[in-house]
């Protein structure tokens, strides 16, 4: 532990994602006597256990926000910043393009570090910490791209990457002796063993290891739904509710001008109830069944088709007739007695 006194103690803001690397990077700096506070940016696309916990079957799983958990392990403050609106331009117009799906990883990293720099300046901090490791996924950590992040974010040599600092040029905090370069790490590549070993050394257990990364935009199924949303609206734009709903229910588009979101169980049913004022919806009256949201303007024939699909997912799926109530977003209600659609008639291409 460093012996810096409070009067000379430097202050660093650490980007805390909730993953292991940012946890370790902050810990390396804390061990050098740096005052560290965490910052976590919420884009709307962040993978959180709670999103999955909407579904009742997942309720037994522990629910925690991993960024908060990390901060608590470190004993530091965490500032969670809503960047939903500002992030739209990053996603819609990424200067460096998308990754394998709709993930604008490099633009996202540049944006977040530029926001961290702004926060650092506004709050009297001295430098920025990230858990980046050279050569590790995602692509924004490629060796040739790390300098791009430094340059385009405007962080310049105030951006410290404690886990791979020994592989990089010395930053201002190193050159000025605020931190000891020799106590930094020289990790590189996709091998996770050095991080796991360091976690063990620090006594960190039960840390998050998200299989699909920390962002829904890296997920193909989610990205497909987002692209469908933009195509249907004929413009690349979204609100928070739009992107929340992409995480919930079965999404079917039986015709270009409307989409159905069919809840899969009680938890999703409850969640979708909150959207009944914004969307038209279908309720199964004669049997237990899902709540179905309607996105689009539907004719009576469309409503019957949609009702037959919704009935297919109800407990009346084998019945001859199911009674269904449709409600438009203007509040107009209609009752239909319809035969549920056989599964063989539900076209695979309707599923988004």
């Amino acid at each position, binding site marked *: 532990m460093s012996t810096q006194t409070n009067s000379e103690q430097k202050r660093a803001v650490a980007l805390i994602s909730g993953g292991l690397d940012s946890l370790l990077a902050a810990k390396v700096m804390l061990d050098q006597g740096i005052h560290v506070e965490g910052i*976590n940016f*919420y884009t709307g696309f*962040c993978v*959180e*256990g*709670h*999103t999955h*916990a*909407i579904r009742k079957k997942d*309720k037994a799983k522990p*629910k*925690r*926000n991993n*960024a*908060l*958990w990390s*901060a*608590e392990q470190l004993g*530091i*403050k*965490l*500032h*969670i*910043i*809503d960047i939903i609106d500002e992030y739209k331009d990053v996603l819609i117009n990424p200067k460096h393009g998308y990754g394998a799906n709709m993930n604008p990883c490099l633009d996202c990293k540049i944006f977040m570090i530029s926001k961290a720099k702004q926060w650092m300046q506004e709050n009297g901090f001295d430098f920025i910490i990230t858990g980046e490791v050279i050569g590790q996924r995602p692509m924004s950590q490629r060796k040739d791209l790390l300098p791009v992040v430094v340059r385009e974010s405007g962080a310049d040599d105030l951006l410290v990457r404690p886990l791979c600092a020994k592989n990089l040029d010395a930053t201002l905090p190193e050159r000025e002796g605020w931190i000891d370069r020799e106590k930094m790490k020289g990790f590189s590549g996709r091998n996770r063993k050095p991080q796991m070993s360091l976690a063990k050394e620090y006594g960190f257990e039960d840390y998050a290891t998200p299989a699909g990364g920390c962002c829904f935009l890296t997920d193909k199924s989610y990205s497909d739904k987002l692209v469908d949303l933009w195509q249907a609206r004929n413009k690349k734009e979204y609100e928070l509710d739009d992107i*929340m709903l992409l995480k919930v229910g079965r999404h079917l588009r039986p015709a270009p001008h409307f989409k159905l979101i069919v809840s899969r169980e009680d938890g999703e049913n*409850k*969640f979708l109830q*909150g*959207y009944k004022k914004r969307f038209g919806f279908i309720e199964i009256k004669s049997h237990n069944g899902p709540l179905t949201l309607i996105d689009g303007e539907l004719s009576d024939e469309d409503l019957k088709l949609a009702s037959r699909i919704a009935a297919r997912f109800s407990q009346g799926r084998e019945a001859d007739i199911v009674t269904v109530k449709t409600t438009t977003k203007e509040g107009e209600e209609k009752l239909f007695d319809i035969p549920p659609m056989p599964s063989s008639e539900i076209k695979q291409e309707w599923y988004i």
Partner: protein
Amino acid sequence: MSQYKLDARHTLCPMPVIKTQNKIAELQPGDLLEVTCTDPGALNDIPAWCRINGHLVKETHDNDDEVIIVVQVAS
């Protein structure tokens, strides 16, 4: 000491935490804030955020459809 209410229903974490954080930034030490949420994850996250930032969770209620968390702002 004043009492306030915050409606964070129909939002998913971390939005209830962000709303709580932003509201508390406007309040005075000792004030009480009652937060109502529909995301059950808030029952873990808001107390975790309070522990990190030194605020006191006075009460929590889980009535299946909604969770209520009462926070006293740190002095």
